[in-house]
Structures are given as C-alpha cells and as structure tokens.
C-alpha cells in the first residue's frame, strides 16, 4: 500500500505543471480567447525562473520571474489579437514558435548550471513518518499552491460576479458590450492571467520538479494542457483530474523501467502523446457536449465597432 501512496505523491508532482497551464488557459478560453501559445509561455517562464534562481540563489524570486515572463509574453498575444484583430490561431502558433526560440537563446549559458531548487515543505518531519503522511504533507509548496489556485478559480468563475462577467464575455461579447462591459479589457486580463499561469507552470518545472534547464524542456506539456481544457469540457475540476491522469501517464515510463518491463524507452516516451490523441478523440466524439460547453465566441475576434 505504501507503494500506492508513493505513486500518488509522484503523480501529483508530475501533474502540477499541467494543472497550472491548463487552469490558466481555461480562464483565457472562458473569456472567448484561444491562446495556442501555452507551450511558448511555459518555456519562457521556465527559462526566466531558472536564470533568476541561478543568479539570485532564491527560487522564490525565480518563480516570480517565471510568472512575470509568461504574463509578458501573453501581452504580445493580447495586443496582436485583441487590439490589432490578428487571427488567434496564427498568433498563438507564432507565440509558441517565438517562445521556443527565445527560451533557447536566453538559456544557452545555463544548460549545465546547477541550482538549489525549491524544496518540499518544512513539514518534512511530519511527512517522514510514513508514505501516507508524505502524501498529505510532503509536497512542494507549488503543488499546494496549484490546489489553492484550483479552488480559487472554481469559486471565482462560478460564485462571483466578475467570474460571471468573464463567462458572459466568452459566450457573447456583443451582448456583454451592449450592456456596458469593457469586453476588450476583460479579455486582456483573462489572457494575462493565462500567461501568468503558464509561466508559473514552466517555473515549477525548472526550479521545483527537475531543477535544471534543458532546451525545450516542457516537451509538449503546453499542448497537452490545451488538449486538457477540451477534455475537461471547460470545467475546472475535470481539468484537475485530467492533469493528474496525464501526470500519471508520464510516470508510467519510469515505473515500467523500474519494474523491469522490457520495452524500448522511446515507446514509453510516446505514451503521453498517444494517450492525449486517444482521449481527445473519445471526448470530442460527442459533438453536442463540446458545443454546449465550449465558450460560444471561442477564437472569434471582437471589434467594438462591428
């Protein structure tokens, strides 16, 4: 049984970057904006967090830098799509390509640098008693923060007035505009929030999960996060469940290798991507549910004059 607890601890750790990135994208999409640049924002967040941690020796400064970098990159997206009415799909792709290039460029001198990463909580004494107590107390602070973020978003979107306004903007920007809500400004904030979360997810990878910097280290997690939002049919709790499910799948390769299952490492490395495709197909098959739950204006530009 201790093995199960051990596995759950690892699953939570592996799923956390997806939780951050997918929850952020969820809020962005709830406001009707499709930002395909998650991968780029995560990478830029990761490299910023790593570089600042390596320089200041304080991982918390690194986390802050990651959040700021992700948000900064998302502003580029927001200006292009919300002010200049550029195509959201093309701009999102551009953001991902740019983020890959930028992070590789910035991180070049840091590839073999070793940093003191963000340690697990100071409740270590409690956590050390058994595998099960580790499950409750032994996580990285950012894992707890991601859970707090989940509850905050769930409450914000469905229990507060601003949350209602965001959802209204996503469903019908025209109506929201007509009754006087600043649609473009609300969308800016939603995009910014999504960028900050993606940056935080990247920062978690670079300073907490595997404290190191490797070019392209997010390995497609930004894209998986985008898929997760669809799987979850735009519901926060299903995002959370999906993120841990995929965290578990990424662990499968290490577990299989440790367990002596003779399978080439490449086949195991493919698993998360194949799983994403399969689950995406199964969930999307139900066109009615997707159409009912997707924000109605998702991906469509809005110009107040039109």
């Amino acid at each position, binding site marked *: 049984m201790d093995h199960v607890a051990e596995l759950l601890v690892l699953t939570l750790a592996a799923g956390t970057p997806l939780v951050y990135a997918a929850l952020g994208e969820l809020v962005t999409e709830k406001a009707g904006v499709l930002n*395909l640049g998650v991968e780029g924002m995560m990478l830029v967040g990761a490299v910023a967090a790593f570089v600042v941690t390596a320089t200041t020796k304080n991982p918390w400064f690194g986390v802050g830098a990651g959040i700021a970098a992700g948000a900064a990159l998302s502003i*580029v997206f927001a*200006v*292009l799509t919300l002010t*200049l*009415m*550029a*195509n959201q*799909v*093309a*701009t999102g*792709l*551009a*953001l991902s*390509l*740019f*983020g*890959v*290039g*930028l992070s*590789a*460029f910035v991180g*070049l001198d840091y590839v073999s640098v070793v940093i003191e990463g963000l340690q697990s909580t100071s409740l270590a004494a409690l956590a050390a008693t058994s595998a099960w107590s580790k499950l409750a107390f032994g996580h990285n602070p950012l894992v707890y923060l991601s859970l707090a973020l989940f509850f905050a978003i769930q409450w914000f979107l469905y229990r507060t007035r601003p949350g209602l306004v965001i959802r209204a903007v996503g469903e019908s920007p025209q109506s929201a505009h007509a009754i*006087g809500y*600043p649609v473009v*400004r609300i969308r800016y904030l939603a995009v910014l929030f999504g960028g900050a979360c993606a940056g935080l997810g990247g920062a978690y990878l670079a300073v907490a999960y595997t404290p190191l910097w490797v*070019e392209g280290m997010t*390995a*497609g997690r930004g*894209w*998986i996060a*985008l*898929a997760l939002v*669809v799987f979850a049919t735009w519901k926060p709790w299903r995002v959370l469940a999906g993120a841990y499910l995929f965290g578990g799948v990424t662990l499968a390769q290490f577990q299989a290798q440790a367990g002596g299952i003779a399978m*080439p490492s*490449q*086949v195991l*490395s*493919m698993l998360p*991507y*194949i799983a*994403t*495709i399969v689950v*995406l*197909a*199964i969930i*999307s*098959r139900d*066109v009615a549910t*997707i159409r009912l739950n997707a924000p109605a204006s998702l991906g469509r530009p809005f*110009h107040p*004059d*039109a």
Partner: protein
Amino acid sequence: MARPVFPVRLEARPEPSRAAGWVSPLIAAAATLVVGFVLFSLLGKNPWQAFHVFFVKPVETLYGVAELLLKAAPLMLCAVGLAAGYRANVWNIGAEGQLTMGAIFGGGLALAFHESTSPFLLPAMIVAGCTGGMLWAAIPAFLRTRFNANEILVSLMLVYVATYTLSLLVHGPWRDPEGFNFPQSKMFGDGALLPNLVAETRLNAGFLLALAAIALGWVFMTKSLVGFQMRVAGLAPAAANYAGISSRKTVWIGMLLGGACAGVAGVDEVAGPIGQLLPSVSPGYGFAAIIVAFVGRLHPLGILFASLLMSLLYLGGESAQMGLALPSAVTGLFQGTLLFFLLASDVFINYRLRVVRRRPVAAQTA
C-alpha cells in the same frame, strides 16, 4: 465606456485591401531588421558588421547560394502543402512529424535495397516518403472528420510520436552494425541519393521537386475547382456549406496535401544533404514552414520568396555562430519576430487608421 486614449483608432475597411496584403510582409521584414539591429547592439556587436555576417556573408559564394537553395527546398515543400490546408482553415501544424515519417518511409526503402543501383529506387523512395507523410497526416484528418478531434492538437502530438519512432529505429533495428554504436543508419547507396545539380556544391535535384510543388500548388490553388472550393470553405464556411462543398473532403484534402509535401521534403533531406537516417533529420523545417506559409501569404509565389528569406535566416544563424560567437538560437528568435510583425501589420488589410478629432464631451455621448 473608456474614451480613446490615443487620437487614432482602427476603422474597418469596406473591403480588404489587396495592396496592404502584399506590402505587409515587407513591413514585417523591415521591422524584424530593426529589432535585429537593436538586439545586436545590445549584445555588444557592431550591428552593421553583424548584418553583414548574418545576411550577406552566407551568400557571397556560389557554395553559399547553393546552400540557400538547398535549405529553401524543404521549406517550400512543407509550406506549399500547409498553405493549401490553411486556406481552407485546416490547421495542420504537424508538418515536422509528417516530414519525419516521410524520411522513415523513404529511408527505410533505401536501407532495404541498399545494394540496388536501379534507376527506380529514388522515385520509389519519393513515392514512399510521400505515402508516409500522407499516412501520418491521415490520422488527424480521420480523427477530425470521424471524431471531431481538433486537428491542431492531434497533428502536433504526432510530431513527438514520429520523432520517437525514428529514434527507436536508428537506435535499434536500423542501426549501422559498423557504426561504432552511434545511433545512425548505414550511409545510403549511390542509387538512393539525389543527383547533384551544381558541381562543388550540395545543391541537389530535390530543389527541382520543390519548384515543381510550387508550380503544382499554384495550379491547384488558383486554377482547379477543388482549390476554389477549399478557398470558399476557408473564407465563408457557411456559404461553402450551402453550396454543397463537403467540409470532410476539405479537411481530408487539406491534411493529405500537407502530409504528402512534407513527406517528400523528408526524403529530400535524407536522400540529399544527410545521406542516412539520424535521430533527427530536420532542424525544425516543418515548424518554420508555418511561418513561411504565412509570410508568403498562403500563395505559392509568395512562399517561394518567403522560403528563401527563411533559409537565409537559417544560414545567417550558422554564420553568426561562427563569425560572431552568437548562438544559432538567434534564428528561432528572428523567425518568431518576423511572424509577429507580419500578423501585426496584417491589421491594415482589413482596417485603416483614422485620426479621431476630440469633440466636446457632450457631442461624444451621442
């Protein structure tokens, strides 16, 4: 409501401006140069010298020009195939994976008939690569038409799967037994290599394939009925639906064309400059081709020029690495910046700037 902070605002044009559409890539290229100028200065390099190393030095020699065309070929192939889909709002972003699959299929054939000197081997490899790319693109097409799965995400996920498949093959069954355990296949036989076009350079017949793809792409997009239908489907989905244009057919054709072209590009690489299978057969051509397609206005002729520009960025990155001790990652940075500026200046296709005169507040409330 907020008053406009700036005395200008965007006003929708009555109809899209064609002129703005063609000028916008030039604006974007100029703006990217300005950013490059600033970036080089910030990095403590003399910007004029850096520009020389980046954009002039690589093409000063015949060999350099040949390299320019050599690198432009896979970009052209991938971009022209992608553009056919993008015109119909079919977003295939997995050309990198389809290219890799093409390399696996074509390269696999070259390894299977290693001793062959048959003149049919090379054409067969191209057909195999084309098929491989199409098969890989058929997966997102099928999942989209049958299960409504988003083709952007599926095609992108398949890039990773294709890369791991290639890695698996060159680490395992296809590894060269005399290769000192390096993850690489045997060098292809002479019958499996594309013939050279210009002596003393690496330019090969793959460039002609790319030009042919551009020409065929032009005929398909501007002269054929299916090409026209796909354009309608992209511009006005509701009208296309009403006119009886099948959206399934649009998705299938858009994806398959992209896969076919990318697959040929994969054969181009392994039967050309590489000459064997390696764990990685492309420095991101399939992704750069997305930028090429947009900068080229999704038009074959535009793609021809855009791929040369993008190829120059690749060469410039290599040259900067040697001549300026700058990382070649600078290339990716320039590619992304170029696309950003393009998307930004594209706003003038559908909108124009209007100076807003400040009127008395009373009049403004009307």
